Structure formats: C-alpha cells, structure tokens
C-alpha cells in the first residue's frame, strides 16, 4: 500500500512540475528607463521626441560641447582673424588658434563623432515607418538637421566646393548600420546630398513656431547659404529673396539691438533669428557654455583690435563690444555679445539670422546686378548704422565691402573662418597686446585649414585609413 502511495505521490509531483514550469518570457527583463528602437519610433510623438533629441544633440552630447555647444561658434572666429586667446588662459582652443592640430586632436574628433551621432539620430527618424498627418513635417525637420550637419562636416574636414568639387569630402551615411565602414565621398556628392535634404526639408517644412526649431523659411535660408558656398549665385539669390519677401521675418532695429543680444530666451516674434540652438535653465553646459569663453566664465577670448576698428562710431554693432582689458592686464576689446554665461537661462547659439540672408542676397546679385547688391546691403546698413549714407561702391570694391560687412555682422558667431575658406582668402591676423603668440599669416591654400580625420576613425575604419587629409 505504501509503495502505491509513493508512486501516486511521485506522479503527482512530476505532473505539477511539468504544468507549472516557467514561461520563457518570465526570464526576459526589459530596462525600466529605456525603450527599444521599435517602441521609441512607433508613433508621431515618438518621432517628435527623437527629433527633439537631434536638436539637443546639436548643442551637447554626453556633456561635451562639440558642434554648436561651443566648438563651432568659437573656432569659426578664432581660426580666422576676429578673435585671439590671451596669455592667461584655461588651456582651451590653443591648438586650434595655433594651427597645430594633429590627427589625435580632441576637438576635431569630437566634432566628427558628435556630428555623425546626430546624423544617426535623424537617419533613424527619417527611416521610421510611421504614418500620420504630421509625419511629413516632423521628418522635414530631420532632413534639414541632416543637411545642416553634413554642411558643417564638409566645410570643416574638406576643401571648399569653390576650390575643388572633386576633392575628398566626408562619408555620406544615410541609414543606420553599426557595421558600416564607409570611405569618403567627394565634395560634390556631399553637397548634392545636402541640397536634396534641404529641399525635402523646405518642401514639407513646418510653419514657424519659435526660433529654436527649423521652420520652412529657415530651411530655405540655409539652402541659400549652401548655394552661396557652391558659387551658385542664381539659386542662392532666389532662395534668399524668397525668405526676405515671404518669410515674415524682420531685421532687428538699432533701438532694440542691445536687448536682442541680452535676451537669452528663444523668440516667437519672428524678429531677426531664423534658427538658433537653444540653451535654457536646465539644459545647458554650465561653465563650459560658449558664452563663458568671452565673458563671465573663462574669459579667455577677446576681439581683435583690427576687427574693432572696422566699425564706425555710430554703428550699433559696436555696442556688443567693450573697451577693457584681458585678465593679464593688457588693453583689449571684451566681447559682450553673449552676457548670460552665469544667468539662469543661457545664451542661445544663433545659426541663421535675417541679416545674413540680406548679405547672401547682396553677394549673390554680383557680378551682374550691382543695383540689387547695393539695395540689399544698404537695407541692412540702415538697421545697423542709421547715420551712414550707404555704400555706393562698384566692382571688386563692392564685393569686398559685402564680405567685410559679413565679417562685422556675424562677428563671434562662428562664420568668418568658413567664409574665408570658401572665398579662398589668406588669413592675415594683426598682433594684439596680451595675446599668445600664434601664426599671423595663414595663406590659401594651406593644409592646416582643413581639419584632421580623427585617429580613432582611421584605426577603426580600414576604408578611410588611406584617405587622411594631407599634413596629418
């Protein structure tokens, strides 16, 4: 009897074990603070969050300040003739200022790495399979961000289109693939892709909501700039004029110039700013914000006297500079254009302003239509220097005046170095008291005016290993 009971007991136990076994899914745990890509990109709101993440990536990634967070706004002026680093400094950007970058350069590596990470973010948005009424305009923002990123990459790491369109550009990566090992595409291929992306962005682009996002006409203004860099004046002018006439934006007038720059918030009133990368009370780089390099932070960088002397006494743009001294005690011009380094809300980084569109329209009218060129140029000058009678130059002198006004208008916004590269101008710096010694003459062409492909990329990508820029 006992034996039979034991047998029944064993059978019962075995039966209950078989039926009560764990489901495999019990063993699979998902993280509480992340989603899978399918979940994250499965709805319109998910796509919007991903695009927001791409905007944020323009300013910072993992707490570094590559791209628009600090590197672009600073080196655009520092590597040209607008600013200098003073002798008592925090050790930042000395190598860029000195033109001694090597393939191990941290800044070049951060620009390359952050740009491609942000490109990966928008690629995944573009390729996401979501339907809805707003999807086209959300993806348009993604296309435009991609166009902007490739534009910055190709103007930093490759020869200008105006010099050699068949030169090696940067690798074009349009889809997410972790194992991809691309070589460099040509400069022409990169610009063609930028144009395709920006045109798609313009076509489906959203209406203006505020200046922290790329709207339809901001994207068209970027198109105008890219056409200008390609020397395609006809298209550049058409796009620029369309933005001026139909965009709905207005130039900031002289009375409000001061407050315009002192205000760290992004705008909704369509004054001047077409697109800026936003930094606010919570999302900012703290002491490492670009503004701190000039004022209320590290205070390492000052305006060149040569630049300061270009402004007339009645030019309102001179009010964002102040006669002062370096930390080391030398007389120098302090840049006060970005005063909010320690404020709650922080200075935003202007990417496109209406003033630049006027200057593009003026430059793209040459050499054929000097009347239009003067008209756009003087329309801007009226809002910057009301006592000035206006330019009336012609020929090469007029082009020179426009380029100089670009320098004065966009000072400290990271444009000058890339401008001088596309115009193939030699960079001639004047010595400044209190500056660290640095090369004063960087001719064009010069190997040092191109950024180095990062050593990390060369080591992990055999297809790009033989394609390093000369001199690195």
């Amino acid at each position, binding site marked *: 009897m006992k034996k039979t009971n034991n047998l029944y007991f064993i059978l019962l136990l075995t039966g209950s074990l078989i039926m009560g076994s764990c489901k495999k899914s019990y063993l699979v745990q998902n993280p509480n603070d992340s989603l899978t890509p399918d979940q994250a990109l499965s709805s319109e709101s998910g796509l919007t*969050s991903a695009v*927001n993440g791409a905007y944020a990536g323009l300013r910072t990634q993992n707490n570094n300040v590559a791209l628009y967070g600090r590197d672009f706004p600073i080196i655009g002026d520092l590597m040209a003739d607008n600013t200098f680093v003073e002798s*008592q400094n925090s050790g930042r950007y*000395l190598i860029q200022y000195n033109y001694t970058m090597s393939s191990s350069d941290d800044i070049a590596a951060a620009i390359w790495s952050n740009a491609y990470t942000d490109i*990966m973010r928008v690629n995944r948005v573009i390729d996401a399979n979501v339907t809805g009424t707003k999807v086209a305009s959300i993806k348009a923002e993604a296309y435009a961000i991609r166009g902007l990123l490739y534009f910055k990459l190709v103007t930093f790491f490759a020869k200008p289109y105006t010099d050699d369109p068949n030169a090696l550009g940067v690798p074009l990566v349009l889809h997410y693939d*972790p194992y*991809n090992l691309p070589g460099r595409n040509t400069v022409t291929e990169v610009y063609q892709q930028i144009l395709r992306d920006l045109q798609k962005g313009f076509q489906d682009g959203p209406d203006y909501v505020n200046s922290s996002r790329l709207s339809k006409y901001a994207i068209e203004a970027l198109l105008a700039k890219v056409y200008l860099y390609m020397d395609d004046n006809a298209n550049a002018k058409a796009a620029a004029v369309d933005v001026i006439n139909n965009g709905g934006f207005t130039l900031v007038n002289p009375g409000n110039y001061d407050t315009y720059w002192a205000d760290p918030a992004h705008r909704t009133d369509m004054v001047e700013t077409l697109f800026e990368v936003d930094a606010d009370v919570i999302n900012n780089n703290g002491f490492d914000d670009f503004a701190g390099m000039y004022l209320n932070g590290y205070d390492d960088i000052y305006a060149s006297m040569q630049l300061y002397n270009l402004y007339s006494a009645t030019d309102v743009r001179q009010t964002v500079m102040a006669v002062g001294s370096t930390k080391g005690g030398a007389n120098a011009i302090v840049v006060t254009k970005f005063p909010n380094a320690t404020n709650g809300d922080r200075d935003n980084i202007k990417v496109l302003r209406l003033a630049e569109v006027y200057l593009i329209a003026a430059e793209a009218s040459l050499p054929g239509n000097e009347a239009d060129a003067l008209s756009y140029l003087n329309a801007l000058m009226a809002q910057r220097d009301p006592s000035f009678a206006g330019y009336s130059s012609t020929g090469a002198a007029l082009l020179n005046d426009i380029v100089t006004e670009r320098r004065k208008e966009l000072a400290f916004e990271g444009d000058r170095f890339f401008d001088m590269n596309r115009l193939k101008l030699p960079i001639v710096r004047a010595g400044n008291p209190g500056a*660290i010694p640095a090369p004063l003459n960087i001719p064009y062409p010069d190997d040092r005016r191109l950024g180095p492909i990062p050593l990390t*990329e060369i*080591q992990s990508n055999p297809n790009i290993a033989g394609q390093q820029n000369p001199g690195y």
Partner: protein
Amino acid sequence: MNEEDFIKNISVISLLKLRVSYGENGNAIGFGYYSSLPTYAYNANYTGLSGSSPTNVGNDNLTWEKNAIGNIGLDFGLFKDRLNGTIEVYNRKTSNLLLSVPLSLTSGFAGQNQNVGAMTNKGIEVSLGGRPVKTKDFTWDISVNFAHNTNKVTELYAGRPIPQGFTQIAVGQDAQTFYLRQWKGVDPATGKAHWYTDGSHTGDTTKYSVAKLAYNGQADPKYFGSLTNTFSYKGFSVSIQFYYNFGNKIYDIWDRYLNSDGLYLGAFNQSREQLNSWKKPGDVTNVPEISFGDPSGSYNHSTRYLYNGKYIRLRDLQVSYSIPKSIISKAKISNVTLYVRGTNLLTFDTDKNLPFDPETGAAAQSNFDVFIPKTITGGIKIGF
C-alpha cells in the same frame, strides 16, 4: 603524498601534497544587465520638451565569457615544518572575451559590446615560509611569495587589433600593451623634438603626425610579490613587509599639460623638468626648446611620458609589545598589546624620471593622481 610508503621514512619531509584541478566558469562582469538590447533613452531634452536618443547598439549574440583553468600545485613542509611552501602552476584559457569593439564613428556609436576572441594567462605562484631561528625567547619567521604571469591574446575577430586608449589589444601580445608614438628625444644641435617613424626605432622625423604608433611595453607586471620578516623576542614583535613589482610600464596622461614646452605656460604651472630645457646648441636634455605657442607638438602623447613601472616598497612595518600576562592577569585582562604601525614608508628602485607614484592600479596609467600616503598609526589592543 607524505603518507606514501616511499616518502614516509624520509625524515626531512614533513608534508608533501600534490594537487591537480581543472575547472570552467562563465563570467559577465563589466557588462550591464541590458547590454544585449538596443535602447533609446529619454535623456536629450530640448527647450523643455522631452527628447530621446539611441543609447546602445545591442547585440543578440552576447554570451558568457568562458574561463577554463588548469592548475597543479605542490604543498610541502620540511624539517618538521620549519620550512614550508607552496608552488602552483596554472594555465587559464579565456574565450568569448567580452569587449567593447570600436565601430566606425560614422555609425553614430563608438563601440559595440561583443564576444571577440581568446586569451591565455599562464603563470607560476610560489610561496615559501620558514622559521630560521627559534630559541626559547626569540623567533624569526620569514615568508616570501612570488608570482609571475604571462598574458597573451590568441584570437580576435578577423585578427583585427582593438584600440583601448593608450593600449591596444592585438593577437600575440599582452592584452594591455601600450600603443603610442615613439619619442626619440631632443636633437642637441637644434633643440627640436624628434620621434621615431615606427616601432623599429630606425627612422627619424620632426613631425609628430608622421610618427607611427607602435607597441612598447605592457601595463601588467611580469613579476610581483612580497617578502615579510617577523622577529619576536619575549613580548616584543617587529614585522617588516616589502612589496615588489617588475616588468611593467606606466603612462602619465596628465604630464603633457605640465611638461608642455611652452604651450600651456599661460594656463598651468609647469613641472621642474621644464627648467632643464634645451637652451643652446650642444645641450643634451630630454626637454625641447621652450617656445611660447609651441608649434612642434612635442607635448602630444608619446613614449616621452611612458616610464618603467618597477618598484620595491616597504609596505608595512609594525612594532608591537604585549604586556606579560603575569602583570595583567591580576586585573582580569587576558591580553594588552601596544603597537605602532607604518604603511608605505619607503619606496626605492623606481624609474628615476618617474614624477609620480608607481603604484597606479591595473591600467598602469596615472592622471595627476595623488601619491599613496605614508601613514603611521598607533594603538592599544585589549582583550578580556
């Protein structure tokens, strides 16, 4: 083995034990719980709106790292255990190494966690102890241990080396072999910095970018161990322990800011070494001509800042005195010991150019780390 008939009668041997073992285990240390999953996190907000970004590539094929260890050991005791010791020889094969393999930065990610290859660790560990002197009141104990390990990477995915900052993992090498540009020195005639063009140390260049990276030294020590002497006389006891370490190199990551040959003169205080810079033709020094602005790039990472990591350190010195029981037993206390103890008191036989503490941890890289402090403590132990 000492129980065996053929050894039992050898009076010298008091203990002889042979052990052999083999085992396999799996290991997933260093990877998070979710390393195999591709993920999006909500960590990239913009203008107060929520923003998401991809945070992990993910890998479906991620699995345990496998270790197979074979071990032979011999424990022995001689002269009634007046001399005893252990010798152990091991061979450990690790496969499915868990590493973050670098990806092309154009993919948007820096690396992906993968199981990529195999390596071996072979070595010997010897430990000896003895009591050379033993009298009624005085004893002297010595113990010595010694470890020697050879690490070699035997397999990697497609044989491709994996850069890891200043070291590189490559087949046929120690897993932590330094991979740097090779510094040659300063030309006494011109004061300019020179690098070798590659690892063969035959070519020469003054341009940093032309110098190729090459393997030079490993971060893990080849030999290390300790020697302890303990002397006791009646209630006094003195114990001295030395720790030694040879065969590795160490890299100073921060040094280039302090020995910048002029570049960072306006930013950081410079090391005393900079006073020895080249000043006129004929000067023989390792510090190039100081140039404010420094266009030569001599401050860049290279074997200039790679040092020999050897050292012998007086790790522990303890002097103690136990009050004789005859005195304290009246107070119903079982023991009272007073002691003074010093740690890390002396270090010698280090690379004379080394500006910092040679004891830097497994990666053998110093980044402006504080010296390990010498400490002296004292106290009383009371037992009831």
